């Protein structure tokens, strides 16, 4: 008995320790509200010219990142108290929590660029619970330049979005790949998610179409006219050159990566009729998955499961969106009328964005607009209205944004918007820019 007693005691304490789990009790009704976030300009440590100019870049970038995140209600700067905090000791929480700002969260900090480096300290505090530790406290140091100021702002914004947005990483460090003819040829270009830092990738002096970045951001698959035929080409962003990829004969279009990076679906007319084929990332083990009369093009994978493919088929005349299992079974038609093309599957697998002319044909004035369909319920929402033709939607990795092309101002340019159709912003200006593709991360 004496031997058993200590063991029993240990077990008893262990059970106490396990029962000491924190409980949260919360709930929701049908409505929803956003976090009210106040982001005052960061406090400069020095007063020299470089600090002032870099701070301006930093403040603007941080504000734009957070306001375009789609999860915050940004408190207008005109409501802010006059005394701007640079450190947590300087925060007067009640002045921020009460009217007029009535903020829930406050992101602030200081910036020092007097020396060679730019140093930023940033905090995020809950002004309604001022006594609690800050949600976020970060320190950054980089070589002083506009680019690094922007990079630090992106990173800090990402941290805030991740914390307050339920663990979904922000998209401020993602890239958008697109086709631009500003050099005279259609080449693949890349830019930051907000349109900054546009630079060309391919320089083949031919025609490139439908760029699709691999999930690990290492390779770019696209359609190339460079070698006479129309083939799938592969460009390595690590080697900065095109790498070999098999040629299949016929017209090969619109490659699409599975989200695990192991497979590539595309459309090929090697047997005469364009059909959907699936190959490994190396181009081997080709498998045909559709066998219907009429063209089958533009496949996209369900990124959540990689077990379904949506694509465009013309088997009933006008192109319509279909979906099937990745082995070609269980075909379902998703659109029932008009002219539907360019599907893009949301990363959480729930939604399909596509371009649709709902009433097509003579006497039916139909605009091409971006629609989003909830696949489970087959309900859809129209996102663009009365704004030229809109095409090639592509989802951002956070499921909150969509990039697309539009000719609403005469020429094809690339726009981004929130997935509910609000906050539409033009990202490109020079030349004609089309077929955007948002990176996986």
């Amino acid at each position, binding site marked *: 008995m004496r031997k058993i007693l200590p063991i029993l005691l240990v077990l008893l304490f262990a059970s106490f320790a396990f*029962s*000491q*789990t*924190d*409980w*949260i*009790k*919360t*709930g*929701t*009704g*049908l*409505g*929803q*509200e956003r*976090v009210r976030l106040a982001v005052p300009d960061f406090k400069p440590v020095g007063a020299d010219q470089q600090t002032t100019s870099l701070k301006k870049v930093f403040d603007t970038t941080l504000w734009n990142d957070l306001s375009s995140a789609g*999860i915050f209600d940004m408190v207008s700067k005109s409501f802010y108290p006059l005394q701007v905090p640079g450190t947590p000791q300087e925060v007067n929480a009640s002045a921020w929590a009460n009217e007029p700002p009535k903020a*829930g*969260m406050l992101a602030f900090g200081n910036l020092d660029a007097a020396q060679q480096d730019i140093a930023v300290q940033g905090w995020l505090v*809950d002004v*309604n*619970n001022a006594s*609690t*530790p800050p*949600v976020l406290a970060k320190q950054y140091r980089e070589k002083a330049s506009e680019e690094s100021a922007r990079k630090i702002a992106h990173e800090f914004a990402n941290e805030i979005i*991740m*914390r*307050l*947005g*339920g*663990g*979904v990483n922000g998209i401020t460090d993602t890239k958008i790949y697109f086709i631009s003819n500003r050099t005279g040829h259609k080449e693949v270009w890349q830019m930051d998610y907000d349109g900054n830092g546009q630079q060309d990738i391919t320089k083949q002096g031919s025609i490139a179409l439908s760029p699709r970045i691999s999930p690990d951001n290492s390779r770019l698959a696209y359609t190339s006219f460079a070698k006479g035929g129309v083939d799938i080409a592969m460009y390595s962003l690590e080697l900065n050159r095109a790498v070999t990829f098999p040629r299949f004969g016929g017209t090969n279009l619109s490659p699409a990566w599975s989200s695990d990076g192991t497979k590539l679906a595309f459309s090929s007319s090697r047997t005469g009729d364009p059909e959907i084929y699936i190959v490994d990332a190396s181009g081997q083990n080709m498998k045909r998955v559709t066998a219907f009369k009429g063209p089958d093009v533009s496949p996209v994978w369900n990124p959540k499961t990689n077990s379904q493919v949506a694509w465009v088929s013309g088997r*009933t*005349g006008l192109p319509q969106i279909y979906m099937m299992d990745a082995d070609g079974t269980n*075909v*379902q*038609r*998703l*659109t*029932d009328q008009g002219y539907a093309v360019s599907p893009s599957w949301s990363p*959480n697998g*729930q939604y399909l964005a596509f371009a649709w002319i709902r009433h097509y044909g003579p006497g039916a004035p139909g605009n091409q607009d971006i629609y989003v*369909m*909830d696949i*489970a*319920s*087959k*309900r*859809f929402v129209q996102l663009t209205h009365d704004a030229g033709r809109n095409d090639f939607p592509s989802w951002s990795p956070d499921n909150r944004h969509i990039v697309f092309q539009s000719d609403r101002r005469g020429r094809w340019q690339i726009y981004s918007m929130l997935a509910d159709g609000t906050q539409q912003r033009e990202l490109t200006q020079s030349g004609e820019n089309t077929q955007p593709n948002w990176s996986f991360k």
Partner: protein
Amino acid sequence: MAASTDIFTEREGISSPLAVSLVLHGILFATILIYGFVLNRNSGNNWGGDSFGGEAMSATLVTNIPLPRPQVETQNIVANESKGLTESKPKEEEQPDVKAIPIPDKETRKKPKQITSTITKPKPVEPPPPENKVPFGEGGPVSGPYGSFSTTTAKGGFGFTGGNGDFGSRYAWYVRAVRDKVSQNWMKYEIDPRIGGSKRAYITFSIDRNGRPGDVQVEQSSGVPSIDISAVRALQRIDTFGPLPQDYSGSKVMVEFWFDANR
């Protein structure tokens, strides 16, 4: 045992039954052919054709589905509180027996009056009531960690029990992120459109250090199956809530989440 007879000795001619059989079969095939060609010529041509579009899932934008209103409830007559037609007999009172003689009571001894002193003891000074004392019956929601972030919709408050009990107050932002994420993933169209209001559905689940939800259970049903199912599905859609705050020491938190589908 009965005597056996060889029945195979007599051989009958096969030709005449065969002829009858052939004629009858011929008539049968002719009938099928005529029926197929003449009477039913047009049907069957559209198998797999385009005009039906049988494989299509038609998708249409629907705001709500017009459904017949529920029938007007009639009151149950049996359970009605109004008086019935029959009267129940009142209980007869017992009459006291006239012949009975009462037993006299014992004489009660009178107690002498107690002499009480007029000097009163000084009362001890009462300590002031503690600030957090809640008078009996006037408790209401406990002040303190409850509601430490303000919501204007008044649809989502939070609290906690057990453990160190300071998660909700220290990390109100995390609780809020959890609430918003669940709310975003709650597809309201999954709820039966006929439901106007119901009780809250209470769901419990855990969040591990990496922010993954688990152990989803319906703690208290709303009474409407579609609300309970939609609430559980909302949690199944969520991969992560984001890692728990770094300075939080526990390995997981438990969440009790209510869903209020009142329109």
